[in-house]
């Protein structure tokens, strides 16, 4: 049993604590979700569980954490490292070896186990996580989902009793998310306690036993996962998007369709299907194009081709959402559109359009010493629009702060605000809502909707698809679909393993009381 008593945690040089008087008691054999907005204290709570080694040297900590009745700081470091394992948000920071097999062996070798024991455990884990066929591959060449699976396998091989996952799906595409969920489902019986921090609860609902919601370092909600339907209405108050599953159930019930009570046996359900507006295709076309892309190919240094013949027109003022699995060439295409890369073959016909990009890791694009300087960079005297953008993005209280000191949500908003202030003809956004809580997502979505410029948005977020004029599905280096998302055929969604929608289709088939199997589109039309 894990017990936390009156835990408070204040970071060095901060006046207010990141955690305030946390009291928790978690039984063995549980899967616990810790939810909350950006900056609510989720990561601090998880890192506190790691013990002395992960705590800032000058941090002020009060309270105690006990495992099986013994304070965790009383365990020697070796003993505690053997009991707890953490999976970090960014797998690139977690993986410390260059081949898949070396990574799995690494922790076991450090534990000084016998060669026989190490080989047996590594073999077991690689089989379990389907890593055997890629064991000699470089860890640099793995997809996001594979990296996270590898991280989990490497930790699990050490047989920890507790596994902590800090926002494990932020950078993953839907197929990557599905792999992680499957893996977690498999390992549930192997470990005593799994704790996941996330602001996107949907994928984990099926597995969870308990949900804890934090806000400003305090516990606001703490309930059994099966009680989600009684609690999800208050989620927006804490910056968390209500689970789409719950919204769907509620909507169906409002329409008089009876749904099985408290059934969480659907991993991921999206509002995608029932909010899809049907538009008239002919109304929405304009001849005023920004760029004509003809048969673009791109070759990486290693000889692979992420783009194998992209052909499309980008019309002025349109919002394009681009989806596709990790590594399918979306980001490369955006760099070609921004003229940062030259295609190996093919042509882009365009007038000299100005481009601005808001990248996934905003820190890499910051120039100014303060937020104000960042927003005003390269501008002359006219700063009236800067003031407007500061208000739109809720950045007023941050203008004298260093951009690097901001939280992830704040950095994303600043990055987008800076890009918009460049008044580009083409605004490129790379996963603008990934890892962002519901409150800040709403701000970002509102600002995208209000854009008059052309927007090219790489995303896995169905909410962005909803506000787009066009969806491009990129697979195997080509555009497989290009139209409004109302018309996305199920066959594309299934081949792309876009489970959010596919699972909704399953839902429609299995759970509607009418007993009539319905397709995604039929369900959308009906509701």
């Amino acid at each position, binding site marked *: 049993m894990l017990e936390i008593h009156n835990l408070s945690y204040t970071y060095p040089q901060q006046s207010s604590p990141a955690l305030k008087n946390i009291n928790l008691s978690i039984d063995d054999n549980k899967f616990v979700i810790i939810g909350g907005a950006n900056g609510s204290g989720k990561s601090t709570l998880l*890192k506190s569980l*790691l013990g002395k*080694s*992960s705590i800032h040297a000058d941090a002020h900590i009060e309270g105690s954490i006990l495992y099986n009745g013994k304070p965790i700081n009383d365990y020697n*470091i*070796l003993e505690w*490292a*053997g009991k*707890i*394992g*953490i999976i*970090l948000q*960014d797998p*690139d*920071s*977690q*993986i*410390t*070896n*260059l*081949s898949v097999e*070396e990574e799995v*062996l*690494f*922790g*076991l*070798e*450090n*534990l*000084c*186990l*016998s*060669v026989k024991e*190490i*080989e047996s455990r590594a073999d077991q884990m690689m089989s379990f996580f389907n890593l055997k066929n890629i064991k*000699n591959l*470089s*860890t*640099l060449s793995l997809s996001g989902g594979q990296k996270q699976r590898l991280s989990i396998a*490497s*930790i699990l091989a*050490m047989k920890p009793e507790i596994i902590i996952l800090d926002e494990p799906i932020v950078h993953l595409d839907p197929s990557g998310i599905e792999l992680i969920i499957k893996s977690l489902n498999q390992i549930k019986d192997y470990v005593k306690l799994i704790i996941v921090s996330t602001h996107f609860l949907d994928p984990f609902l099926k597995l969870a036993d308990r949900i804890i919601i934090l806000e400003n370092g305090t516990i606001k909600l703490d309930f059994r996962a099966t009680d989600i339907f009684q609690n999800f209405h208050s989620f927006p108050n804490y910056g968390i998007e209500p689970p789409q599953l719950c919204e769907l159930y509620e909507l169906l019930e409002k329409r008089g369709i009876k749904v099985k009570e408290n059934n969480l046996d659907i991993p991921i359900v999206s509002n995608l299907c029932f909010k899809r507006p049907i538009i008239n295709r002919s109304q929405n076309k304009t001849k005023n194009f920004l760029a004509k892309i003809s048969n673009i190919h791109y070759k990486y240094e290693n000889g692979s081709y992420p783009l194998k013949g992209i052909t499309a027109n980008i019309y002025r003022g349109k919002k394009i959402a681009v989806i596709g699995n990790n590594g399918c060439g979306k980001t490369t295409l955006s*760099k070609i559109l*921004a003229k*940062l890369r030259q295609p190996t073959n093919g042509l882009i016909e365009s007038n000299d359009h100005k*481009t*601005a*990009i808001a*990248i996934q*890791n905003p*820190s*890499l*694009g*910051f*120039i100014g010493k303060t937020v104000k300087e960042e927003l005003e*960079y*390269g501008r002359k005297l006219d700063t009236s629009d800067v003031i407007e953008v500061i208000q739109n993005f809720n950045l007023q209280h941050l203008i004298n702060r260093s951009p*690097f000191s901001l939280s992830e949500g704040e950095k994303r908003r600043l990055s987008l605000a800076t890009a918009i202030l*460049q008044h580009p003809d083409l605004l490129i956004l790379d996963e603008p809502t990934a890892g962002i809580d519901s409150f800040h997502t709403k701000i970002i979505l509102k600002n995208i909707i209000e854009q008059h410029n052309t927007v090219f948005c790489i995303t896995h977020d169905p909410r962005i698809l909803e506000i787009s004029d066009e969806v491009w599905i990129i697979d195997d280096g080509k555009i497989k679909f290009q139209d409004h998302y109302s018309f996305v055929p199920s066959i594309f969604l299934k081949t792309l393993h876009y489970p959010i929608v596919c699972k909704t289709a399953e839902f429609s088939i299995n759970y509607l009381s009418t007993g009539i199997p319905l397709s995604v589109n039929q369900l959308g039309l009906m509701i």
Partner: protein
Amino acid sequence: MKIAYDATKSSLFHNIDPINKFIWCFLVAIWLISLRDIFSVVIVSMGILVFVIFASKLSLKKYLLLSCLLLSASIFIIIFQGIFQEGEGLKIWFISLSYNGLILGTAIALRTFGFLASSIAFTTTTKPKDISLSMIKLGFSYRIAHVLYLVLRFIPLFETDAETINDMYNLRGVKKNLDRFIKSIITIVSTELRRADETAIALETRAFGLYKRKTIINDIKISRSGLILNGITIILIITHIILKTHIF
């Protein structure tokens, strides 16, 4: 990384253990440093290059590309030696360059191309993990060996980050000057420090550094081909010394 391990190829050098390869690189370096006349330097450097091309399947194109990076340094070495060595020479504009210095400078510069060939042969045919295992076998702490190995793991991430920063600055019209350079360094350092912080946590939860020693599954075995290569190289060096001393 043009000098990174190339797993797609198979060659004599790929089959030699890193310790023997390292010793061979060391012998080659000693041999090149000991040479004084330009003729010997040219012969030995060319010999090493030709051998490396066959024994490690080194692409000549890759070698020439990397040699270009050395070219400016070589020119500097030649001029530097020309200026500071005494003796007869020629005068270009107001600079006096001695023939002795120019010859010595050329010999030094040519040596670096020999070093380059042997070094590329080493890095492109040796798994980074094997380098770290060799260090452990040679008595270094596994902690130091793994930290060096980690550098190789993170260089590609570092390169990607630097590329992104460069792209963003270009897009925002940041002028290419010292200020831009300093800003990009600050950004890279702060990003990598954050990454290092997380990696430190990852290492600690994987019990890294808790024992003085660790179990090693894939230990390095000294290869016979490596011993033969080093034996032949030593014989060649000794023969060369004897020929130089007693015959020429």
